[in-house]
């Protein structure tokens, strides 16, 4: 099968890949670009472990073709930490024990990252519906909610100090 060249921006860097039309974005991210942070869970767009950011929206990369990323801006969990420092969301998941086995965490972080930009001051109920596309089989979600709340406070404090 003929391959198509696809160019997009991944975590701030321009990348070119040759893909078959039938290849899904998650497979190209993991197998060609060697970014194995995004996980393959259910492969049926239910679990959210493969969540990445495409053009400023959270999407499930198991249900998007890699060819559809042509010209897109893509961010994966590998793009969260900057300059050797954890992103406030990552720090919050550590501090609040927002993970146990960690399998769902990359998806939780990427959804949380976008969700807190859509809604910087969410109520607990809003967090629950905003994070409803991500499943966790360990934590019972309580600490994930707490992690998002802690991250929201940290991010808002940062924004506040920048504005001063």
């Amino acid at each position: 099968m003929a391959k198509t060249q696809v160019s997009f921006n991944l975590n701030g860097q321009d990348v070119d890949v040759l893909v078959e039309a039938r290849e899904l974005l998650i497979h190209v991210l993991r197998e060609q670009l060697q970014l194995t942070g995004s996980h393959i869970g259910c492969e049926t767009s239910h679990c959210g472990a493969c969540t990445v950011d495409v053009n400023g929206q959270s999407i499930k990369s198991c249900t998007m073709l890699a060819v559809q990323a042509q010209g897109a801006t893509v961010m994966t969990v590998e793009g969260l930490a900057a300059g050797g420092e954890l992103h406030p969301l990552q720090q919050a998941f550590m501090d609040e024990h927002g993970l146990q086995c960690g399998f769902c965490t990359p998806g939780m972080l990427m959804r949380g990252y976008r969700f807190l930009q859509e809604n910087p001051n969410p109520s607990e109920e809003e967090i629950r519906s905003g994070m409803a596309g991500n499943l966790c089989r360990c934590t019972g979600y309580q600490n994930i909610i707490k992690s998002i709340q802690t991250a929201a406070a940290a991010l808002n404090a940062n924004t506040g100090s920048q504005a001063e």
Partner: protein
Amino acid sequence: MIPPSFEYHAPGSVADAIALLSQYGDAAKILAGGHSLLPMMKLRFAEPEHLVDINNIDSLKGIREEDGEIVIGSMTSESALITSTLLQEKCPMLPEAAKMIADPQVRNRGTIGGDISHGDPGNDHPALMLALDATFTLVGPNGARQIAAADFFLGTFFTALEADEILTEIRIAPQAANTGASYQKLKRKTGDYATAAAAAVITLSGDTCQSAAIALTNLGATAMRASAAEAVLVGQVIDEDLIKQAATKAMEICEPAEDLRGDAEYKTHMGGEMTRRAIRAAIKNAGGN
């Protein structure tokens, strides 16, 4: 899971997309949001040789008002329905219902046109379109035609859309005065299809029901209007007893498929309950008691 091989096309205009559909006929499928088609392809329930991706056609996206009608582009995402101030103001049932569809990530990709065109009785937009008396614009090689939602859903995965046509626009009248609408959906969990769901649109004149539209999701081979249930309400001052009678009429047309969500009896019963809740909420939203 990886879909079978296919040739990928990403036309930039409706005309180019229709040319591709005309050329490849039944061997081609339209790719909208992909959240029904790609999973089906992974499971080999669908094996199109050509995939015509219409995500790059900007004219198919967006919500506007034109000649007193609300016009929704078929490639408008569920997320865009939810955040549309125009819909919140003039067709509030649609954004409220879209919140009950799938989850945030899926709603960013999933489109209203894909949900309608797929013909799945479990999808939510068909019943909403029936209750709202929507009109669809279908464009094919011989131009555009308009079709009422009531004439569009022909059977499970079977609609009036021809193989070389694309659903481009959905037209809905803005909600009339003294009107309330509600969509009530029972589902087991986030992202699930409805066990049963009902849409109701009710217009009051004083305390009297002037008109009523009721439609059901996942309770038969397609979404369907419950006309006999509507007839119970029109011209009456609606009370609990009439709501119960209307729900009984709605249950009489239910023929749900048995699956893990429940057997036919349970689903029919839930269809009645969703109908009752939708009627009550619609009356409340219309400003009645």
